């Protein structure tokens, strides 16, 4: 694997921040995941958890006593990392783009001068890589939105966007995992719960996985919703 030049520094008194060159790329993502699993195999003493973002890993400790020797050990793990891209899954996320869900579709169609159908086609034609989870419980940071769909956030954010809403904000697309205020343009809705507080692992999607949106009609949305309520629905995975 290509070796990146990493920076190690303390973050507060009990965390260690490891930084990659600051850009969004699949190579960096793959490297972060590989390093994280190498650390998880032999966690340094007192490590509580590891949080990945676009180009960093933050290691939270009970107490970070010896910064120098910890980073030395981590450097050694970095050299022993192995890429495990074969573990990545591609999830099919059904999305209803009809008016009752895609409440801003008409408006962004006017702004972007792209027809509603074309927006739906572009949005659902390519897979999106999951870089990390943050901002809200279960909110996936997705890479790779087609530049034709980049669209500024709404001037005034909505006080409440319902869980499952699929939106575009700037150069990003994403799904609101819980009800939340937000300024993204909403183009559709998914019945799939991306955050489930009743599960020990609240998110089924992991960093490195990809999502592909599958356009569905209201009837299918309702059917899936019913299956979810009855506990009969399992998120669909595409075999690559």
């Amino acid at each position, binding site marked *: 694997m290509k070796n990146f030049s990493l920076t190690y520094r303390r973050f507060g*008194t009990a965390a260690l921040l490891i930084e990659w060159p600051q850009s969004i790329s699949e190579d960096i993502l793959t490297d972060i995941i590989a390093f994280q699993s190498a650390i998880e195999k032999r966690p340094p003493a007192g490590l509580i958890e590891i949080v990945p973002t676009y180009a960093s890993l933050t290691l939270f400790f009970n107490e970070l006593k010896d910064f*120098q020797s910890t980073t030395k050990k981590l450097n050694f793990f970095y050299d022993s990392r192995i890429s495990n891209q074969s573990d990545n899954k591609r999830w099919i996320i059904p999305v209803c783009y009809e008016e009752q869900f895609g409440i801003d579709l008409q408006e962004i169609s006017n702004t972007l001068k792209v027809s509603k159908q074309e927006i739906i086609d572009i949005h659902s034609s390519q897979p999106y890589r999951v870089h990390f989870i*943050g901002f*809200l419980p279960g909110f996936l940071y997705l890479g790779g939105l087609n530049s034709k769909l980049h669209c500024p956030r709404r001037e005034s954010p909505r006080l409440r966007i319902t869980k499952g809403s699929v939106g575009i904000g700037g150069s990003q697309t994403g799904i609101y995992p819980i009800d939340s205020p937000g300024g993204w343009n909403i183009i559709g809705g998914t019945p799939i719960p991306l955050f489930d507080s009743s599960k020990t692992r609240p998110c089924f999607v992991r960093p490195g996985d990809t999502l592909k949106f599958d356009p569905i009609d209201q009837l299918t949305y309702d059917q899936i919703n019913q299956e979810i309520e009855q506990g009969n629905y399992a998120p669909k995975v595409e075999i690559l």
Partner: protein
Amino acid sequence: MSVIEVLSPGLYTTVQDRGRTRFRSFGIPVSGCMDQLSADLGNNLLDNDSNAPVLEITMMGPQLLFQDKANIVITGADLSARIDGKLLKTNTIVTINSGDVLSFGKLKYGCRTYLCIQNGFDVPAHFGSCSAYEKAQLGLPVLKKGMKLYYQNNSTPIFHQNSRIKPSNLLFEENTVDVVPGPEYHLMNEKLLSETFEITRDSNRMGYRLKGVLSYSHSGSILTSTVMPGTVQLPPSGDPVVLMKDCQTTGGYPRILQVTEMGINILAQKKPGDQIKFTLKTLPEGRQS
């Protein structure tokens, strides 16, 4: 199980413990007591587990009807706690009798009062913590009229029955908050360290928005990265935000400073309109590339 009935909820009253770590990579905030030190003092006195859930009361207290006996300790901000009109001692164990109504009055100092109870409040845990996080419906919801709080009332004698703790004056009198450099310290104008900031009304368990005299507006930006309670973010507008216990796990503003744990406790006892200053401490070791 013994019951406390909420006759009135107060301004913002929640059950909190030490919060939920280990789930930040799912985007779940840490939550937990804003002023952990005050909660710890009460739990220690009661011989409770250090993670025993307590009630965090903000500026205006609830009215609580105890349907059973209870040993409690009230710590943190002085909110003139009373039992049937009579002022209650704080920072010491008090036995509440069945049928007593605990109420609160004028805020004398501080911002957050902790009601600790022997054995802790019995609250459903999510991801290893009983702390309320309203947005994702974790823990018990914010107190409402008519809600019931449960606790185990065993009549085990208390070891520290007559002891009293002396709360640290630092918490309530100090207006300097210790910080260490944050990852984007270099994007900060160092004049910020001699500024006196006012805590604005737009401050809550997620974060404190500060307003200074000078403008610290800037055009620096970062790729979204990790943040934690105590992280001081500097949005382009130049008004710093100190992230508190319910803060999100990642953020896109420069992280100029990091408030120490003690600094978070001190901030938790400051209310809108109060003034603070930062004092820069150095990290035990420098940076390494």
